[in-house]
């Protein structure tokens, strides 16, 4: 058995050495396909990462009709923070509110000069727990707050939230469609390349069968070869991706988002890198297998 395995590996390696053109063609084709897919994946997870960091900003603002008295404030905050969806509630005084409004107006802040310091109401800024950054979570919190008559007005950017959620859904959908398209294209190209490789070597397959080799005996070295080529292509793709990311993508992503919150571009983590290489191996062996079934008829 061990003898057999070493024989198969030797034959796979010998094949690859003997047909450097075919071998490198298959490897590079797979590497290109894998790198393309991984690039798309990177873009999608980065957008999603950004989306998550954006959605962390989702909060409900409750305006007071009259600023609460000093001793009423603490129990109120405790009460609000006890809601299932709420992470934290922060009190914003009138002065602070105006300061923020000025900051938000930016260039236009000068326009507020001379306006009464009382202009804006005091409020409670309520941030939500990570599971509740969506329409339902906001709705539940708003419903609870409405029961309290001390709140004059509630702001929660309903419209913005909906639009944002639609956008993320769309993004996922586009990513899925493009992703499957590329996966299919990659599989197709790879299995074609391997089919051509095998086609160019059909005499070999025929003669092996004629001298009494079993189907498995014929197929295993080719499968191994496919797997090895897949491994090589996975490593190539990973190397290419790392380089591209370091030199190009990282910077471009950072600028692209013009990110308001501190968001670091994400690269593939250890597991995902492993998966990429495994995908290569799978692609190579599957491609070989599919094509072999066509060529090794006994």
């Amino acid at each position, binding site marked *: 058995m061990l003898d057999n395995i070493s024989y198969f590996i030797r034959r796979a390696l010998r094949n690859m050495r003997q047909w450097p053109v075919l071998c490198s063609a298959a490897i590079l084709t797979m590497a290109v396909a894998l790198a393309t897919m991984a690039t798309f994946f990177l873009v999608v997870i980065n957008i999603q990462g950004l989306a998550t960091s954006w959605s962390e900003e989702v909060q409900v603002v409750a305006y007071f009709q009259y600023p609460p008295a000093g001793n009423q404030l603490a129990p109120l905050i405790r009460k609000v923070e006890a809601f299932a969806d709420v992470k934290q509630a922060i009190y914003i005084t009138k002065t602070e509110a105006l300061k923020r409004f000025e900051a938000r107006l930016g260039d236009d802040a000068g326009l507020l000069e001379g306006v009464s310091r009382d202009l804006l109401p005091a409020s409670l800024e309520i941030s939500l727990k990570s599971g509740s950054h969506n329409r339902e979570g906001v709705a539940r919190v708003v419903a609870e707050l409405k029961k309290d008559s001390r709140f004059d007005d509630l702001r929660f950017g309903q419209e913005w939230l909906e639009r944002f959620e639609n956008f993320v859904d769309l993004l996922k959908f586009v990513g899925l469609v493009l992703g499957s398209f590329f996966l299919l294209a990659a599989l197709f190209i790879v299995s074609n390349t391997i089919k051509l490789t095998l086609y160019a070597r059909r005499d070999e397959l025929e003669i*092996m069968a*004629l*001298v*009494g080799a079993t189907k498995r005996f014929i197929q295993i070295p080719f499968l191994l070869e496919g797997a090895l080529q897949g491994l090589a292509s996975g490593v190539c793709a990973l190397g290419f991706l790392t380089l591209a990311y370091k030199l190009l993508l990282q910077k471009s992503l950072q600028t692209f988002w013009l990110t308001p919150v501190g968001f670091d571009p994400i690269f593939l983590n250890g597991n995902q890198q492993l998966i990429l290489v495994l995908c290569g191996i799978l692609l190579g062996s599957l491609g070989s297998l599919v094509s072999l079934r066509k060529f090794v008829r006994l």
Partner: protein
Amino acid sequence: MIQLFNVTKSYGKENVALREMTVHIEKGEFTYVTGPSGAGKTTFLNMLYGACKPTRGQILINGINITRMSGRQIPYLRRKIGVVFQDYKLLNSRSVYENVAFALEAQGKKRYEVSKRVYKALKEVGLEHRLQRKPIELSGGEQQRIAIARALVVEPLILLADEPSGNLDQEVTLEIMELFKRANARGTTVLLATHDHSLYKRFPKRVLGLEDGRLIMDHQP
């Protein structure tokens, strides 16, 4: 050893290569298969190692009906049979050594044993000095001898040789015939398809004569 019952092989509708052939060949027999070009000699041999199935009729080898054999079993049949193909069927991308070793490796033989037996077989056909060449770098006759070495290296129960001396000069032909006779003496059943009248005149053995797919002669010396 080899029994054919009413075997007919046709390609397409009107193209009949073998017609109602019934023949028995004993274990250890040496048999010539002769007949003009297109008589059906190659077709006859092809069916014995499962390269094609008869359209009608049954073929028994060692008592096993190979017309009913599944694809899984055919490799095991072929391991008992050495074939010298009319067109050699050598791999031009592999060395002579690898071409011959192939037949043994396919049977899962140990590396050490393979190299010993391959060397011996190549020596017998007089080509041990061509070990590392590619078949395409050999002369026609040398290629034919490689094909013969590959068939003999597995020490087969049955040897099917299709026109094994078509590209060999008389001297080498005699040597090859000696090899076949020696294998035959060790118990191998030999079937040799040839046009060469001088061959079976010089080494008289049983002769099966085909013409247009029919067995028209079965002559025991």
